């Protein structure tokens, strides 16, 4: 009769809670930062909805405007704006870092690498705001 080892080795998995992201403030910040993409998607869909309403005529656009005036929608949009600001600040801090050369083996200070991105953000915001407000 063939004999099999009594002990079957298998991979060890460290116990890992489903609530790992609540364990530390940094983990929570990471998850909030990453989930900002949900609000990016949300408002792009709203923008598509808006343009779709534009193509369908004044009544469809009035319905869109009425929908946006709902208090819960305004609340959702305030939350979305907060997440978008979080996204743009963290993205400006993180991504340009990879493109800047290091000086004397040290990375440049975060304010230096993030500043051009903040300036672009300000310019884009002013230009878009001027176009939107200039339309009326």
């Amino acid at each position, binding site marked *: 009769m063939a004999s099999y080892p009594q002990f079957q080795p298998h991979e060890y998995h460290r116990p890992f809670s489903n609530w790992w992201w609540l364990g530390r403030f940094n983990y929570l910040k990471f998850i909030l930062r990453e989930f900002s993409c949900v609000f990016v998607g949300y408002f792009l869909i709203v923008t598509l909805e808006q343009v*779709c309403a*534009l193509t369908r005529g004044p009544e469809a656009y009035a319905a869109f405007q009425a929908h946006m005036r709902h208090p819960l929608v305004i609340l959702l949009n305030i939350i979305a704006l907060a997440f978008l600001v979080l996204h743009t600040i963290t993205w400006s801090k993180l991504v340009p870092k990879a493109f800047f050369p290091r000086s004397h083996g040290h990375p440049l200070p975060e304010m230096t690498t993030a500043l051009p991105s903040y300036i672009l953000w300000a310019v884009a915001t002013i230009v878009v705001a001027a176009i939107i407000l200039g339309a009326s």
Partner: protein
Amino acid sequence: MARRANEPAVWFLFGTGGFVAGYLLPVHILFFGILFPIGLFTDPGYKAMLHLFEHPLARLYLVVLCFFGLFHAAHRLRLTLVDFLRVKHLENVLGVVLYSAAALGTLFAIYLAAIV
């Protein structure tokens, strides 16, 4: 993990999308989502918005914003859901679903830009 061959292309889309959405969407939300609805600024209204959108650059703007923004959101949501829900085995399924949704949204933006 082995580097995937499509990684630079995905990262270009993802990275650019992060900037495009990050620079342009906050001001959109501020005006169309908050300030116009609560009446703090006068809504330009149907005619002015339609006139604005009829400009070729505005149509291009919509397509660029949706293309980069939607792929950024899709890619990031995929990575985040894999970590958050710990479903590494669903990574490819999530990719197919989310990138398809982003592609559909982009096609819809192109359609809207074409018919106005």
